[in-house]
């Protein structure tokens, strides 16, 4: 298909404001007279709040009001999947940082004094920080229903038979690290009550419509009485899917006749918000001598910390993706999400898949190593193709680009390997080089749940086009991509469309900006909306030209009958006439990819309509003396269906590699120890190599112009590729993230250094 706007490197919407510093993030908004909010947080990991005395704090000058659980008018329980989290503790606190009281004050200083003056007594309870301990019958009980949040099982074929038919069986355990999203913009928002009583919240978020619903429940009012407007959002990576400052802002605005504002410090952002689930994985893989996978059996334990958040989704995704993008006839997976008194874990770029990929990709390389196969060949021998059946029993019907990504990566694998052999200057003692490959698959959208999106395209009598979408652009670029899709359909440029986005007062629900779903799902909704709007115009143009509408061309901002371009009429003119005749044109688009819920016992079903695929190779330098590992080069090939905006896709690939380097080599969040960016290290420009992005386009028939998604896939193969490269360099496997100084130093015995 020839496209004019889709597939082009269109400038990102709003980028001019961003480079000039004009863009207003929530903390930049000027709200005269706004009160400051601060939260008193639990200093203990597990306990019962026995007493809250606010008198002294309230007496402090400038303190306007102090809220506790009893002030919550609606339900003091929220959570995106399972509701188990309190806005302010009603009796129990479950991690260090659990909110207990909320202070509204005239200024920062008074709020801080009030924090110190609050008299709060907590009876400390025994706490548990290890998910395996938490599962024991005598473990401290963190939630009423027990510490097991959820179990996901997937069963297909007969694993025992599969293992007996295998020539080689490998069983290993893996552990992944607790991570912080570390978006550079800390959580922030403002709220006020409008004259008519509606509570309006402007906030950094990935999830405006879900926020609205949850806030309405907390306040005990109808959702129409809450308006959530997404402010420009400085990154999210899943960490802004759960609410942060929203409930506090809403509660204060509900009671007080003053605007309120709240911005987390970096320290509070680290302490109070979700983390990436650390996983413990036992994986047993069987294969034939030729490297054909016969069976995979895995047990996964995810530490969801104090609250569920997205724990169920993470446990499910880890299970669904546990085999990697390979045909495996016999599969038995059990994946659990378990409560502990650690910081709560939630969604983070990839929902469990970056973690499980460490296991399945290490297993692939271990098999290849034992069988004397090269890492690309063994993957190719097993990779999905059209017609393959996944562990959940789904037959892949189209857009299965994994093999193409492997093909595209092979030359880089060979090139990097050659570079090692041809390295001229001798390396310092103990320094070794290695090349590593890893692949991944990633289902787009929510797992086995409906996840609809909607959008509207409106055209008024002046020809002005407006695209309305509830999708929150958090920096990844969905605004631009959605405009490109609408513009392509309507035959105009993106600059001719006005965008209204992510405001529950003006736009309809597009679902969360998560699961790499906005391009595919909201993109398709936009496509539908624009198509409907265009049809109305085509009808009018057909009348004007007195020709069937199927023969009318809409392109370059004009309408004309096929082969009679000289008769062209401007888009605006047709719009004007159409609107005069029939009123404002409004194309309504929705899309909900086909999924079916997974069987609770066997996990069989259709978790997603479509999947993204990728393969990455990296060249790594391992200093076995110091334990330092650096990634020197990387190439990453991604099947995105169709790159609506190649610059954006490449940007996601670079971004994913960088984040994966942090995950693989040094990021680790220690509950109650990690406070800020001085101890939580994310990659700097010097820690990231030059990356070659490779775009593979195996179109997805249900996607807009064939597009799928790339946001999370970009990250997933990075850490496993690094681990596999470390093995090639040192002959040793690392089964535990991060592969930090101590791990690597201990890996290689002195005589090999």
């Amino acid at each position: 298909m020839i496209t004019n706007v889709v597939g082009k490197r269109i400038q990102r919407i709003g980028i001019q404001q961003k480079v000039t510093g004009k863009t207003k993030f929530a903390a930049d908004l000027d709200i005269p007279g706004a009160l400051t909010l601060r939260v008193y947080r639990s200093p203990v990991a597990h306990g019962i709040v026995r007493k809250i005395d606010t008198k002294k704090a309230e007496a402090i000058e400038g303190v306007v009001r102090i809220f506790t659980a009893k002030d919550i008018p609606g339900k003091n329980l929220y959570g995106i999947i399972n509701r188990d989290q309190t806005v302010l503790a009603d009796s129990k606190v479950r991690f260090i940082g659990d909110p207990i009281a909320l202070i509204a004050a005239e200024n920062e200083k008074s709020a801080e004094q009030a924090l110190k003056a609050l008299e709060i007594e907590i009876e400390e309870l025994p706490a548990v920080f290890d998910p395996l301990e938490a599962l024991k019958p005598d473990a401290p009980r963190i939630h009423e229903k027990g510490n097991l949040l959820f179990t996901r099982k997937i069963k297909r074929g007969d694993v025992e038979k599969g293992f007996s038919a295998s020539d080689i069986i490998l069983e290993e355990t893996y552990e992944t690290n607790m991570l912080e999203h570390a978006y550079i913009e800390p959580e922030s928002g403002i709220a006020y009550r409008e004259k008519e009583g509606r509570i309006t919240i402007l906030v950094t978020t990935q999830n405006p419509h879900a926020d609205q619903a949850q806030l309405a429940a907390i306040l005990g009012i109808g959702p129409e009485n809450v308006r959530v407007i997404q402010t420009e959002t400085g990154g999210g990576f899943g960490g802004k899917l759960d609410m942060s400052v929203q409930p506090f802002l809403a509660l204060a605005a509900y009671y007080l006749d003053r605007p309120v504002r709240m911005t987390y410090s970096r320290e509070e952002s680290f302490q109070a918000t979700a983390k990436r689930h650390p996983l413990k994985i036992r994986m047993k893989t069987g294969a034939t001598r030729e490297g054909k996978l016969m069976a995979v059996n895995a047990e996964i334990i995810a530490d969801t910390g104090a609250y569920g958040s997205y724990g169920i989704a993470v446990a499910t995704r880890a299970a669904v993706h546990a085999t990697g993008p390979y045909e495996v006839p016999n599969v038995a997976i059990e994946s659990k999400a378990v409560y502990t008194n650690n910081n709560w874990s939630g969604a983070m770029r990839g929902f469990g898949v970056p973690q499980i990929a460490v296991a399945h990709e290490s297993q692939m390389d271990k098999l290849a190593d034992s069988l004397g196969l090269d890492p690309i060949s063994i993957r190719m021998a097993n990779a999905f193709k059209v017609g393959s059946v996944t562990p959940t029993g789904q037959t892949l019907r189209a857009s299965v680009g994994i093999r193409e990504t492997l093909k595209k990566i092979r030359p880089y694998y060979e090139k990097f390997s050659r570079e090692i052999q041809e390295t001229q200057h001798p390396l310092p003692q103990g320094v070794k080089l290695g090349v590593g490959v890893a692949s991944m698959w990633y289902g787009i959208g929510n797992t086995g749940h409906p996840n609809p999106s909607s959008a509207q395209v409106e055209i008024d009598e002046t020809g002005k086009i407006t695209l309305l979408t509830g999708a929150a652009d958090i920096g990844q670029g969905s605004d631009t991509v959605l405009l490109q899709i609408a513009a392509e359909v309507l035959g105009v440029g993106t600059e001719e469309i006005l965008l209204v986005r992510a405001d529950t007062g003006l736009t309809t629900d597009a679902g969360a900006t998560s699961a790499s779903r906005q391009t595919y799902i909201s993109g398709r909704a936009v496509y539908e909306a624009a198509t409907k709007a265009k049809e109305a115009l085509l009808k009018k143009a057909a009348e004007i030209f007195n020709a069937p509408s199927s023969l009318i061309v809409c392109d370059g901002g004009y309408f004309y009958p096929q082969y009679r371009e000289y008769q062209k009429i401007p888009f605006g003119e047709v719009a004007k006439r159409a609107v005069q005749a029939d009123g404002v044109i409004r194309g309504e688009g929705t899309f909900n990819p086909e999924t079916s819920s997974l069987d609770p016992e066997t996990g069989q079903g259709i978790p997603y309509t479509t999947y993204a695929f990728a393969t990455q190779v990296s060249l790594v330098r391992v200093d076995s003396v110091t334990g330092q590992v650096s990634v020197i080069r990387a190439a990453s090939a991604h099947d995105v269906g169709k790159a609506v905006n190649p610059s954006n896709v490449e940007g996601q690939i670079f971004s994913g590699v960088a984040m994966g380097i942090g995950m693989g080599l040094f990021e680790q969040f220690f509950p109650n120890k990690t406070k800020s960016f001085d101890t939580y290290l994310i990659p700097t420009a010097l820690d990231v190599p030059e990356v070659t992005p490779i775009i593979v386009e195996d179109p997805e028939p249900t996607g807009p112009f064939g597009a799928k998604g790339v946001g999370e896939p970009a990250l997933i193969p990075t850490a496993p590729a690094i681990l596999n490269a470390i093995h090639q360099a040192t002959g040793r496997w690392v089964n535990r993230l991060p592969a930090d100084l101590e791990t690597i130093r201990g890996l290689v015995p002195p005589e090999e250094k």
Partner: protein
Amino acid sequence: MEEAELGNEIVEISMQVNGVSVVLRTPANRTLLSILREDLRLTGAKEGCGIGECGACTVLMNGKAVNACMVLAPKADGARITTIEGLGDEARLHPLQEAFVKHGAVQCGFCTPGMILSAKALLDENPNPTRLEIREGISGNLCRCTGYQQIVDAIEEVAARKQGEES
């Protein structure tokens, strides 16, 4: 006399901000960042950490990149400060801003003002940096979104263009 030597809680600061003289009285226990953001409403400089680790608050002080969160406000007395607002506007983008736009070197944009100012300081000092030197020059600016590559591309292009103009 003796007490006077111990100074005051309120100080007077005069500085040039983006070419404009500014005089203000303020408690001494504040940062340059809070003066810029709260008193002067120049919100291009961001607070990402407040402890000198992220670079989101980077501004130029007497031509050098500094973390505005690490500068006690009275230290800026007499200084020349350049914030992103003083670099260029949409009608007349600074070449670095233009290159960032062209290369898509921006995602969420939260790190961008600080990143561009670090890049400017780098190029002012070293007009012809290698890619590695560019990476060093922006190593105090964390970006979680872009993976830095398009940022390096953008800065490299400006450097190359400058070189071209000079030769």
